[in-house]
Structure formats: C-alpha cells, structure tokens
C-alpha cells in the first residue's frame, strides 16, 4: 500500500524499458507497453500502455491507451482509456482522458477534459443490454 511505484502486472513483460540512467531524445514511438524511469525529451506514443516512474523526467507530449504517472511530465497527455496519477506525479500540460484516477499529492497545472470514449462505450453496452432484455 505504501510503495507507490509498484508496477501493475501488465508491465512486468514490457516490450521497452528506459532505465533511470538513460536519456532519450526525439520522437519515441513504441508498439507494446513502455516503462520510463529515466529522462525523455521529444514525444512519446504507443497503442498500448505507458508507466512513468517516480524519478522519471519527461518533456514530451504523450499518447497512450493507459497511462500511469508517478514522475514529472511537461507536455500534453492524450489518454484513450485510463489515466492514473500517483502521489508524486507532477503534470504541466493539458490532459485528455477516458477515465481518471488522482492520488492525494499529485500536482496538475493544465486543463482536464474527458474524451468521452468510456462514456460512449458504457452507453452502447447498456443500450445493447436493454435491447436484449426487450427481445
């Protein structure tokens, strides 16, 4: 409970890991899950999920399916599904998300907006359920 940097199970076999002593510059486009513990400057994009560790420093716009942040991020975030901000997260930038979880202590400087994807999905599912009930 007190270890905030525990990675979710899905990151244990991450395709790409950037360690704490590594600096990445440029447009980093991955395909699988990505873990960032070091420094990244540029942009960061994947169709899968990204985990940003407590000591990581990211100056980049980020696009991902799920995004878990415990470090320092300067840039706009575009998260299709789930965004989680840990207690040590510092965000300077606008955020677009599906669903959002913010732990006490997280700092956000920017605008928050929901992309409505999750809402749309839920509405579709409840509509389907209604239709099948009627039938």
């Amino acid at each position, binding site marked *: 409970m007190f270890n905030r940097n525990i990675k979710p199970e899905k990151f244990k076999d991450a395709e*790409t890991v950037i*360690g*704490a*002593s590594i*600096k990445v510059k440029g447009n980093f486009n991955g395909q699988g899950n990505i873990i960032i513990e070091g420094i990244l400057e540029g942009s960061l994009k994947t169709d899968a999920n990204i985990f940003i560790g407590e000591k990581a420093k990211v100056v980049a716009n980020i696009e991902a399916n799920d995004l878990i942040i415990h470090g320092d991020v300067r840039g706009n975030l575009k998260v299709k599904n789930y965004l989680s901000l840990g207690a040590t997260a510092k965000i300077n930038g606008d955020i677009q998300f599906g669903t959002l979880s913010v732990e006490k202590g997280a700092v956000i400087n920017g605008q928050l907006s929901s992309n409505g994807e999750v809402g749309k999905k839920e509405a579709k599912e409840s509509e389907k359920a209604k239709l099948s009930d009627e039938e």
Partner: protein
Amino acid sequence: MHVYIYDDYLNRGRYNKTVNRMEIRLTDLGLNGKIIRLSGIKNIRGTIQNEIKLGAKTIVAVGNNQTVNKIIGAIIEADIYGDFQKNTLLGIVPIGPDNSIASSFGIKNEEQACNILLARRIKKIDLGLIGSYYFLNEARIESLGTKINFADYSIEAQERGEIRIINLLSDRSNTIKSNPHDGLLDILIKTKKGGETLLRAKNFSLINERYNLLLDGVVEVKTPNEVKVVSNRINVIVGKDRSFD
C-alpha cells in the same frame, strides 16, 4: 560433403587427445570429410568459398567462438556462389573454452557435437551485422559515452555500465528472452545504479569515441558504425538443448 575447419590452437598438444577422439567418433558415424587447418592459411574466406564452390554442403567449425566468427562471413557473403550457399549448413564442434555460440545451439562438447551433426537438426536463424562483421550471439560496448541513433530518436547512458546488442543468448537463465527468428536485435543496457534498459530494433547506428564494440567476445570493431539484423540468413545444425525454439 562435410568440410571441417580446424582452428590454429588445436595444434597444441593438450588438444591432441580430444581431436583424436572426435575424429574417431566422426569416422564411426560415417561423417568424416575434408579437413582444413587454419594455421598457415592467409585467405580463409577464399579457401572456404572455394570448398563451397566445389560442393561442400556442411562447413563445420572445429574450435571456439573465434573459429565460428572466422568462417561465418565466408559462408554467407559469397554472393557470387549464391546458388551453392543456399544449401550450405554451419555445424560446430566445440573444443576448449569460449564456446558460447555452441552452447546457444545446445552443443556442450565434441562427443555430443558429433551426434548432433549426425542428427542434422536444422534451424534458420538471424545474424547481427556491424559494418562488415557478422555476429551470432551478441556485441558488447561500454555504456558511458555511447550514443545510439535510431530513425526518430537517440539514447545515451549517463553512467558506466555495459550495452549488449543481442541476437541469440547463449543460455536460458537470462532475464530477457532473445529470439533469433524475430528479425530484431535486443538492446540491453545495464548500469550500476540505473538498473536495466531494454529496447528492440532492426537497425541503428552507434558511436563511442573511446571504446570499441566486441563481437561474440572475439572481434573488436570501431565506432561509429551501422548495426542491423539480417533475417533468417544462415542454416545451422543445432541440438535439442538449444537456447531458442
């Protein structure tokens, strides 16, 4: 036809018994063939390519990683013998230390190697290529001062450690799973404080002004240099206990 390439160091007295034992076993199994001793040969590549041209179907490196590295380029780079090289197989009989390549193929010693040559289990695998030098297992370089440039981004390590560019791991006990059929190289960076970094890529360039790359533990290559993977480039004879599927 089998052609056996004996490395220089096998002339030393301490390897006589092992070599004799191997030769007897090969004869028993009906696998004897032409023997070429590398000592005294200046143009190794030309000699091996000539054997391929004359119809050698299997080139067997008798020695260690260095022996394999010496002959691998000759087997696959002979474009003028394109029709012949398609059928050329690489076999290994490990003798002495520094035999991680043989280990990755599941070959532990000379006796087992003879049985594996007889069983003729064939796998097609990728090769790493740095400049004009091929490697089967991995290339290593100091991490501090090394910059790796990919098409859209670059990475640099901020402290001392080691960068390993892996095509095929020599054992299964490692934390990463390398696959010599996936058309990718694994880049593993381990630093003292910074933990592990893992990336996969087809091609990139690498520069370190102070240190050289070491390929398969035997060949030193200067940087800057281009690094790439050559997919399914060589047919190898492997054992059941190999480190890949």
